[in-house]
């Protein structure tokens, strides 16, 4: 019985204890349930994102650069098929071994291997390394033959930049190269579309229009497992090609210009005097932009860098030169506009024995025996220095500077399009005080009158100046990329309405001009200057008479210039050496500006030959050949212009 009572007691205890235990179990179950609720219901989104992050990995595919063409749709920057070899790191069992094998197959150089190891240091274990960007067909086929021995190596057909006219357009189009950290930081578009191995523009149009050209990268999404192995492709947003660009350049004229400049340092610029289209912007010497695409070799780079004629300098817009006598039409125009003198004003040029004197300083004309009594037209035509010393003295440097700036000197022609473009210098009394902290001397005014001294211009500025004189004195908008907003007919009608507008009181004061606004006070003054330039090329004793075209349709007007690189001493004058006898570095720069055709001007040009000697001998003859080509191609260009307008 006792036992039974004991057992009853035990049964009671066990039931009570079980009850407590079950209660505890229910409590614990509640905790687990609420935890599951928390994970799967409340925080579902968070964990879904984490799960996708786990399982989905993105690979970016490189964008395709836009194509660049000239005005006539000739491709000047193309995308070319290239053979590459990539190494997928996650599939490589022994990296050193793979590189060693590859080295033997595709002949990698020591420094290339060093670069590969550097790249490997920076990459993630699932990245793909580009071992070689540009294999020859022979190497590529050899690689494919040995592929089974190379784990992780992948032969890839890719595209890269190719410039079919290699050297001819490098100063316009520029070149591409690997994106640096700086490139990525500076341009948002590059940052957004960056993929390893992305090429970006380094200079020229490639650089300034990078944002338009670059395109958008694609994204391939793969499902991957825990060790990063691709299981399946989930989606592929295809990469897009960047915008195609049509430049205003005429490839044929550009090529002719480069040909004419061959073996010399210099520049040739050609511009449409109404639309401001830069038709040619040649700079010599040049170099091959294709060498930069896959990284230039030290050897090639040194060759370019150490060339005494400085191929890397874009002389058209970053080369600064004294304009020399090419500024004379502008000095004459300024004097006429301000009414300082009239066209009948005469000065006697008496030769080296009787130079122009001012406060004891003597200023010589280039012509040893003198020009005799010169009127304004003759002074421009024969480029008499004495005449312009006197005109400049009467005019004053500040008025000259104001007119020079108005016609395009002293500021960037293509604004910020090219980072390397230079502003040049158009001196004035104020400029000298501010920059050099010195007062102006009258003697400095005198030499500014013949384009020497402080004044510094780029060949493109001279071309623009000529254009704005030749179009009758209207401000134009220079451009290098075809822009449908710039319409010839609209420009011409704008100019027509400006012509008939009454002149404002401010015309001779310093102020900002809008595009296609008239820049002159009296149209007769401009006409006079242009006529004098005609004389300079087409009449006997004109400085560029020998370079004239006899045929009416090619007739052009121009002005030579010879820019001294050092002061001519009395001794030099005494010796009167031939060009060949002077040291290259001391020879004068030869310049020539012109517009054509004379009766109905349409194109302006500037020619510069560094250390070429005199403008009439070295620069003007090139203009003769160029102008023929430019005018021959005029019809075709106008046809394209109409077609483009109709498409729009």
């Amino acid at each position, binding site marked *: 019985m006792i036992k039974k009572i004991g057992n009853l007691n035990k049964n009671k205890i066990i039931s009570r204890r079980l009850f407590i235990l079950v209660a505890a179990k229910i409590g614990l179950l509640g905790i687990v349930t609420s935890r599951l609720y928390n994970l799967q219901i409340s925080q579902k989104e968070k964990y*879904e994102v984490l799960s996708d992050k786990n399982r989905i990995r993105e690979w970016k595919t490189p964008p395709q650069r836009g194509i660049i063409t000239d005005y006539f749709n000739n491709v000047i920057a193309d995308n070319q098929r290239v053979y590459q070899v990539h190494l997928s790191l996650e599939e490589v069992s022994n990296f050193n071994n793979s590189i060693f094998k590859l080295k033997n197959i595709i002949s990698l150089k020591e420094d290339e291997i060093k670069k590969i190891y550097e790249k490997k240091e920076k990459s993630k274990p699932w990245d793909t390394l580009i071992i070689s960007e540009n294999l020859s067909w022979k190497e590529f086929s050899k690689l494919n033959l040995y592929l089974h021995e190379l784990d992780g190596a992948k032969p890839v057909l890719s595209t890269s930049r190719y410039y079919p006219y290699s050297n001819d357009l490098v100063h316009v189009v520029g070149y591409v190269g690997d994106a640096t950290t700086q490139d990525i930081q500076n341009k948002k578009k590059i940052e957004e579309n960056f993929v390893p191995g992305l090429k970006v523009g380094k200079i020229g149009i490639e650089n300034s229009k990078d944002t338009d050209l670059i395109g958008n990268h694609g994204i391939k999404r793969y499902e991957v497992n825990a060790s990063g192995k691709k299981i399946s492709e989930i989606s592929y947003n295809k990469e897009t090609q960047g915008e195609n660009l049509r430049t205003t350049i005429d490839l044929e004229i550009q090529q002719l210009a480069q040909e004419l400049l061959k073996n010399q340092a210099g520049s040739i610029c050609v511009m449409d005097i109404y639309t401001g289209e830069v038709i040619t912007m040649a700079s010599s010497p040049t170099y091959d932009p294709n060498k930069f695409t896959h990284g230039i070799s030290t050897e090639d780079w040194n060759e370019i860098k150490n060339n005494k004629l400085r191929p890397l300098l874009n002389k058209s817009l970053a080369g600064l030169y004294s304009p020399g006598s090419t500024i004379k039409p502008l000095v004459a125009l300024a004097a006429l506009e301000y009414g300082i003198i009239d066209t009948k004003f005469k000065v006697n040029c008496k030769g080296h024995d009787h130079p122009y004197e001012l406060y004891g300083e003597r200023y010589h004309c280039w012509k040893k025996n003198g020009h005799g009594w010169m009127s304004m037209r003759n002074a421009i035509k024969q480029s008499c220095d004495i005449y312009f010393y006197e005109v400049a003295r009467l005019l004053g440097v500040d008025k000259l500077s104001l007119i020079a700036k108005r016609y395009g000197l002293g500021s960037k022609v293509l604004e910020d399009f090219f980072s390397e473009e230079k502003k040049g210098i158009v001196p004035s009394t104020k400029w000298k005080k501010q920059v050099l902290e010195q007062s102006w001397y009258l003697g400095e005014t005198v030499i500014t009158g013949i384009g020497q001294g402080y004044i510094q211009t780029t060949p493109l500025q001279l071309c623009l100046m000529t254009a704005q004189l030749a179009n009758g004195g209207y401000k134009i908008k220079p451009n290098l990329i075809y822009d449908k907003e710039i319409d010839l007919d609209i420009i011409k009608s704008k100019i027509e309405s400006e012509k008939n507008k009454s002149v404002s009181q401010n015309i001779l004061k310093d102020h900002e001009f809008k595009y296609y606004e008239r820049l002159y006070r009296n149209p007769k003054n401009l006409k006079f200057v242009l006529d004098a330039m005609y004389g300079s090329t087409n009449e006997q004793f004109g400085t560029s008479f020998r370079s004239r075209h006899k045929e009416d349709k090619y007739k052009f007007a121009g002005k030579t210039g010879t820019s001294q690189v050092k002061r001519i001493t009395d001794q030099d004058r005494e010796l009167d050496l031939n060009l060949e006898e002077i040291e290259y570095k001391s020879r004068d720069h030869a310049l020539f500006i012109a517009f054509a055709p004379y009766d109905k001007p349409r194109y302006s040009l500037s020619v510069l030959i560094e250390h070429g000697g005199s403008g009439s001998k070295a620069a003007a003859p090139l203009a003769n050949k160029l102008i023929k080509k430019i005018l021959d191609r005029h019809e075709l260009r106008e046809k394209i212009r109409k077609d483009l307008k109709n498409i729009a």
Partner: protein
Amino acid sequence: MILSTSLNSTSYSFIDKLKAVDYFLIIIVAIIGSMSVFSIYSTESGNFSFYTKNHLTRFLVFFFMFLVVSFVRVSFWYKQAYIFYILGILLLLLVIFFGISASGSKRWINFFIMNLQPSELMKIAIIVCFARYYHRIQSSDIQSYKYLLQPIILLLIPCYLVITQPDLGTAILIAGSGLAIIWLAGLNLKYFIYSGLILLVSLPFVISILKPYQKSRILTFFNPDRDPLGAGYQIIQSKIAIGSGGLLGKGFLQGTQSYLEFLPEKHTDFIFTLFSEEFGFVGSMVLILLYALLIYRIIRIGFSSRSFFAKLYCFGFASALFLYIFVNIAMVVGLLPIVGAPLPIMSYGGSSMLSIMLGLGIVMSCKIYSRDPIGN
């Protein structure tokens, strides 16, 4: 009294026995069993290969064993309880000398057809042993030091042997189920409180004797991001898998976390994670509910048993089963450190399946022979 007992103990007809079977419990076990087969099938990305085949075979074999054991008289287990315990200890000792090592611990003995993990068997042996032990003790004697010390020694021996394998998880489960029975038998609450305090005080010492990987697991539990690619990886990936399952889950065979091998040990300790990823919150609740029903049925059988041994065994086994389930799920959802405890029936593993089915068989035998008033 004695006469009636012996009379009763022999008067079971086969029909009586079949009538007494708890079919509901069998159905629950069958359902959970089939769910486990599908889950293992999913760990193999829907291929009916090695793990699935093995698991299915084991489940069928041990399910059959469960039914066979059900018809073994409960008094057999009562009589053989200490033998069972001693056998368990012997096997554990055998492991030390002839055990097979895997991933740094020695837990298995090769028995040709299967690798037996004696510690799993010990989980059941301790319950049977304690049920017998307390069956005989008067309630007034339970609190005495003599009767307190004996079970503690009985419990410490297997726990020590298992910890040194090392297998902290199983040791905790053995200790936990032993303590549950001591509690059910009626040991005064104050002893639990005292021992709890002693444990707290000795914790620094315990930690100092832990293996470095065990320490790291515990530290990682408190801050999984401490080492996201090392020790914390399992917890983080398991939580991602469960959380991303959402309400209804990613669907059968669609669990990306496990399919893409982000989930370690997915067919053993982390089977719940896979299940939860594919079937979501609803699926998890269904599984938990099935387990709850299973435990409820076991407790019910305990209540209907006349003998104290059967009662204590059923309640003890139910508590132990709950403990296994709770520790496993709490572990994979990040509520407890990862200690290595399989989910009953669901997890891949022969020994675990064997011990659960054996345990359930004894429960069923308690049901069938419920009128047996055991040993005096």
